[in-house]
């Protein structure tokens, strides 16, 4: 694989910084998205009241600095909003800005390697003033800075009433800091009264508001329970739990189970679920009317206990318009931290496909040579009779070709592309009346040990990862697997001969399958490189290994995760790969770097599956926190958060045109997402157990899903995406009406004989291959 000279690693450094900095201003809830290594500047700020008295001038200065920074980054809209909110005159910016730019570049606050002048000056100012003042009472500047960013974030979402206090520094999982918020004492006996009072109120409100307000129950319940536990009211906590846990929505049962085992203050230390709950605000989407109703009620009753929790631990995203129905709410809720904020899904995503490089048919050799010399096949003028004519015009939604530096095509890659095109012409057009044939590969004698499967794109090789730490590769074509000869033997070969590639192979080693040993724990993820020269495997031992399929040896062990790595996948263009694991971080790697290029952090629980977008510019990750996130490879930003699953997500698939994403989870449902609009567009019910595999047919007409319930199901993807409801209102509010048409979309169900389906793959001609281990 050709290295990318000065590739992503160097070229993007500048962009990195900019986006990191702008990250702050965008007030992403999880402000550390995409840069775990660099703690956010305000991390020392703790939760608490933000309205602490601070010098007004100081605050204003900070405000100005922020404005200046925003302007520099061409975020004029935000500047406007913020300025209006703060009541600053328009010209007040100019002189102050100039002044602030003179500040020295401190950067000491978080070790962020900042070069952008204004951003650093802002930060240095903040740190300087905070260190100058006495620690405790005069945290003003930091907090006001945090408050500002916060405010800004709300403004950008244009919901000015949602000015809930919100500290920016909560991402550091310091247990003591995190827990201290619970130290406030209320009368433990009254908790039940408060809760049931609220319950009565919500049950008594109008139907249209009830469903919305009911969302408050679960987060309130959890926080009240945790407060009781934290303050050592064990018996009250238990009674509280027993009394109200039955009221909670059934999809929270898993979390409640974790919660139920937690009865002591000591247990709260080091409990991940708890930390998740505390570090991230539970996001609720409530209509303005309903919210006012709740607020009035709580204020009338002087119910401060509940009001405090709502203020501190909940993020209420208020929208104007009709309250949502119960089914609409249920469709979107279920994740560990509530729904995604609307602004989290507003960023532009270039979901279009990259232009296919023009490759001539092998007939015209001269042209191809010329192309090689030029070295930039993509820039070549479009060829008239090319097979890849569909990509002549640049898709307006596609990223620019070199947004992410991609490896150049080698001769072998081009040959492969030609093969691909030839095969594509023989492809069967699928549809509801023309279902694919399914060929099932059963792993026999696997003794429950098969944990991962992958096929090569041309379906010539199949690899299996096993619980006994081995990786096995089979050839499913008559062509056997051969190793390259040893170095000594290679010396004897005539290197000038035409069939040198054939000669370097050692015939003696030919066999149908090869075993790759090297991991020291079950292999959970496996992925072939697009050129079939490499294989990636991720394991419980915390490493990702790169294997050569020429020598059948391990080439690199990528260390970094330290905890089990649940999944890994090569980019469709090779060279890059992504991995995700128990440490809640997804990492982007390049094969020739032993350290990750990007870390995608933000998930609140294990990253269970990872998928590359067909254009290699984005990575989707599914997690045990029951959310799906889409990350921009270029800058590491989280550009989409999809909530709606009720269980850990175990399967993801992008549609071939890059517009849609399908996800499958332990709840047995497949959800369909429109990436461009950031909306859920479909729900496919039918499976009765975890879905481990999803795949679109090559043309995207059929979605195949494979599950633990021993079935392969085929769904009509064309139809599912056709009757989309994409009017402006839906797009703006994200309130979808899903009709329950799973039965109409289901085209076929195919039972296997006690064989869970753990992998699916469409061949280039649209034959569906499925794989699983026979478990008698």
């Amino acid at each position, binding site marked *: 694989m050709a290295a990318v000279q000065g590739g992503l690693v160097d070229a993007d450094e500048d962009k990195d910084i900019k986006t990191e900095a702008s990250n702050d201003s965008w007030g992403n809830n999880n402000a550390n998205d995409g840069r775990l290594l660099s703690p956010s500047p305000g991390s020392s700020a703790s939760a608490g009241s933000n309205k602490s008295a601070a010098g007004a001038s100081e605050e204003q200065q900070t405000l100005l600095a922020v404005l200046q920074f925003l302007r520099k980054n061409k975020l004029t809209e935000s500047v406007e909003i913020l300025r209006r909110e703060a009541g600053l005159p328009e010209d007040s910016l100019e002189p102050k800005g100039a002044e602030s730019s003179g500040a020295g570049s401190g950067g000491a606050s978080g070790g962020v390697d900042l070069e952008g002048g204004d951003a650093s000056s802002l930060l240095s100012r903040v740190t300087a003033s905070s260190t100058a003042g006495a620690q405790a009472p005069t945290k003003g500047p930091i907090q006001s800075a945090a408050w500002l960013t916060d405010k800004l974030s709300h403004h950008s979402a244009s919901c000015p009433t949602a000015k809930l206090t919100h500290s920016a520094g909560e991402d550091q999982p310091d247990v003591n800091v995190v827990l201290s918020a619970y130290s406030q004492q209320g009368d433990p006996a009254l908790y039940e009264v408060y809760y049931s009072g609220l319950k009565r109120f919500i049950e008594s409100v109008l139907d249209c508001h009830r469903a919305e307000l009911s969302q408050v129950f679960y987060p309130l319940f959890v926080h009240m329970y945790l407060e009781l536990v934290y303050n050592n009211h064990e018996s009250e906590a238990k009674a509280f739990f027993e009394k109200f846990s039955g009221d909670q929505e059934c999809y929270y049962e898993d979390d409640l189970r974790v919660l139920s085992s937690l009865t002591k203050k000591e247990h709260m230390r080091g409990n991940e679920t708890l930390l998740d709950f505390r570090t991230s605000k539970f996001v609720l989407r409530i209509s303005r009317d309903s919210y006012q109703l709740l607020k009035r009620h709580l204020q009338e009753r002087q119910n401060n206990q509940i009001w405090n929790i709502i203020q501190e631990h909940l993020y209420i995203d208020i929208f104007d318009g009709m309250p949502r129905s119960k089914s609409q709410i249920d469709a979107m809720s279920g994740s560990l931290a509530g729904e995604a904020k609307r602004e989290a899904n507003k960023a532009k995503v270039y979901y279009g496909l990259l232009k296919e490089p023009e490759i001539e048919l092998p007939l015209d050799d001269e042209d191809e040579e010329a192309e090689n010399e030029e070295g930039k096949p993509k820039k070549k003028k479009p060829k008239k009779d090319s097979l890849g004519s569909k990509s002549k015009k640049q898709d307006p939604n596609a990223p620019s070709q070199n947004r992410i530096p991609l490896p150049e095509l080698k001769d072998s890659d081009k040959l492969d592309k030609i093969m691909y095109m030839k095969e594509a012409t023989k492809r069967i057009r699928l549809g509801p009346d023309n279902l694919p044939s399914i060929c099932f590969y059963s792993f*026999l004698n696997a003794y*429950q040990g098969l944990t991962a499967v992958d096929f090569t794109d041309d379906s010539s090789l199949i690899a299996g990862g096993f619980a006994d730490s081995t990786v096995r590769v089979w050839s499913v074509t008559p062509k056997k697997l051969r190793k390259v000869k040893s170095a000594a033997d290679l010396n004897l070969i005539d290197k000038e001969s035409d069939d040198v590639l054939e000669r370097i192979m050692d015939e003696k080693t030919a066999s149908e399958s090869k075993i790759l040993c090297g991991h020291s724990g079950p292999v959970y993820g496996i992925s072939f490189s697009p050129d079939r020269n490499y294989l990636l495997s991720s394991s419980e031992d915390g490493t990702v290994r790169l294997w050569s399929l020429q020598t059948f040896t391990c080439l690199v062990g990528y260390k970094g995760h330290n905890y089990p790595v649940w999944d890994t996948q090569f980019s469709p263009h090779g060279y890059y790969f992504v991995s995700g694991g128990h440490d809640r971080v997804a990492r982007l790697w390049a094969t020739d770097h032993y350290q990750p290029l990007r870390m995608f952090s933000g998930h609140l629980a294990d990253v269970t599956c990872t998928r590359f977008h067909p254009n290699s510019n984005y990575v989707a990750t599914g997690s045990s926190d029951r959310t799906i996130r889409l990350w921009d490879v270029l800058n590491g930003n989280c550009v989409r958060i999809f909530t709606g699953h009720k269980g850990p997500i175990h399967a993801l698939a992008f549609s071939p045109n890059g517009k849609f994403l399908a996800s499958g989870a332990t709840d047995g449902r497949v959800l369909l997402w429109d990436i461009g609009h950031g909306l859920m567009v479909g729900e496919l019910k039918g499976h009765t157990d975890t879905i481990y595999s999803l795949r679109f047919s090559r043309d995207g007409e059929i979605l195949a899903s494979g599950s633990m319930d021993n079935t392969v199901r085929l769904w009509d993807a064309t139809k599912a995406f056709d009757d989309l409801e994409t009017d402006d209102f839906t797009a703006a509010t994200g309130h979808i009406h899903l009709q329950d048409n799973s039965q109409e979309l289901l085209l076929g169900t195919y039972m296997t004989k006690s064989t*869970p389906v753990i992998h699916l793959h469409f061949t280039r001609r649209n034959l569906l291959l499925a794989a699983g281990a026979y478990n008698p």
Partner: protein
Amino acid sequence: MAEERRQKQCSVILPTESMKAMAESVGVGQLQEESCVAISEEVSYRIKEIAQDALKFMHHGKRRKLTTSDIDNALKLKNVEPLYGFQSQEFIPFRFASGGGRELHFYEEREVDLSDIINTPLPRVPLDVSLKAHWLSIEGVQPAIPENPPPAPKEQQKAESTEPLKVAKPGQEEEAAIQGKSQGATAADGKGKEKGLIRLKPRSTHELSVEQQLYYKEITEACVGSCEAKRAEALQSIATDPGLYQMLPRFSTFISEGVRVNVVQNNLALLIYLMRMVKALMDNPTLYLEKYLHELIPAVVTCIVSKQLCLRPDVDNHWALRDFAARLMAQSCKTFSTTTNNIQSRITKTFTKSWLDDKTQWTTRYGCIAGLAELGPDVIKTLILPRLTVEGARIKAVMEGPVVSNIDKIGADHVQSLLLKHCASVIAKIRPQPDNVEQYRTDYGYLGPMLCSHVMKARTQAALQAQQVNRTTLTITQPRPTLSVSQSGLSGSTGPRTPSIIKVPSSLTLMSPRPGTPSQPSPPATKYIVMATSAGTATTQQVITLSSSQSASPVTSTVPSATSTLQPLVKLESGSGPGLTGSRPLQKYIVVSLPSSASSSLEPKSSVIPTSISSTSLEAGMKMERSESPGASTQSPH
């Protein structure tokens, strides 16, 4: 319900005694109660935490079963050293013992003699992982090959027959697709129209392929033919083959027509053969007969109550056939009776009505009583016991009265022993001791004294059995890693089913719907021999849930309970579901216990029927247990 469960979750904590025991085991003698409580809470919490982490590993391992390695990995995640030496891929066979009011679960660690290990030959190396391809579906249609499950699983058959109008069944789309294929474009159009309107129940097609027709012919000929060995093979095939769903209507018609003809001709042997076919169909775990009961039940009832079943009623043992058919009837009542079809009450009414009729002949009378008695002790109690006096008088009239025909005498004799047999055990349960002959005479009339002696016999038997039951044993034979490879062509993998003619040792040929060319080593057989009655069932259940995988429910042969005078051979056997490639011969041994006097050919001569459909040598792993209990429960807990 859910609430209850959650409450439980919240409160489950290890007992403090365990803490004390563990403390003592590491040398800490005096542990205060308070510390015990604190420790047990902490330990419970940690265990739950680890279990939750272990679940994660199970999910990622794509398994449904939590294994010890998952726990190890979870411990590793917490940076705790895992437990070494618990590398069991399978379940850990906890054993249960109770006594002195205490229940104990323990893990049996036997002392192992080193020389034993050295001297035993090494087990065969487990087979290496291999890959096998087959067609799961060809252009939307699932081919009926052994690698695929039977076309219509039992649950679906059940759903179809019990809720015929329920829309959106799991396999519906599939069937529609099949129709579309077979009927071309019209069906596809029709399907399009259907949408929005009422969804019609899909027609199920019963067209048989040539192979299936051949198979049907062979099977039916063998079943009623003269060769007993061949018949055994055929019945075995009916009882185990997973792909008979399509042929079921034909079988059912065959049986009902066969009975109709042979009753007229008084052909006892053929009637017996046909009843054995019914039995085999019922035993087939993949078939759900509800839809065909309207044909089968009349046939069976005919065999129970017909006036004459054989040419020479004085010599031939048609009683055995009545008994056998009555048992079949009882079994189908138990399986298929619902509130909508009311089979049991309808059958009971029929029997009672003809029994009450004075003109009824002794043969029919016998059949009615047998049919009622097999329905269980409740029916006996409510319907038979009150009539014992009347019936006794009738028998007395025949036995002691003026000489009537020999046939009547034999009939009365049989009815008498039947009544004694069935009523004794029921009376033993409901009547308090002591058993007074005079009292019995006043209560039950002519039959009283005989009943009394039978009841006393039954009581001693029960006492004996009770002693046995106290010792609850659960023998679990561990799966042995003895697997055998069987080479074969992948004949079934490419096309629709290709039946082959298989030579069996007895040099007869049998058409089998599945290719007997297994290419899959048989799964390790796990056997549960449960020798226990009610007391042990709970435990059994527990252990089996722990251990049994999601494999198809095992075949159980439910042998109808026999009388106390007999020593029935009760056989429990669990064969796992049909193997992927059908290589695993479903060994099935049905031992029907019959009165020793029964000399009819009904009794299977060979209680062990060698299933040699597949050439795979497989140890049956069967164990025989002689159950002392009369009518010991023989249902497998599955």
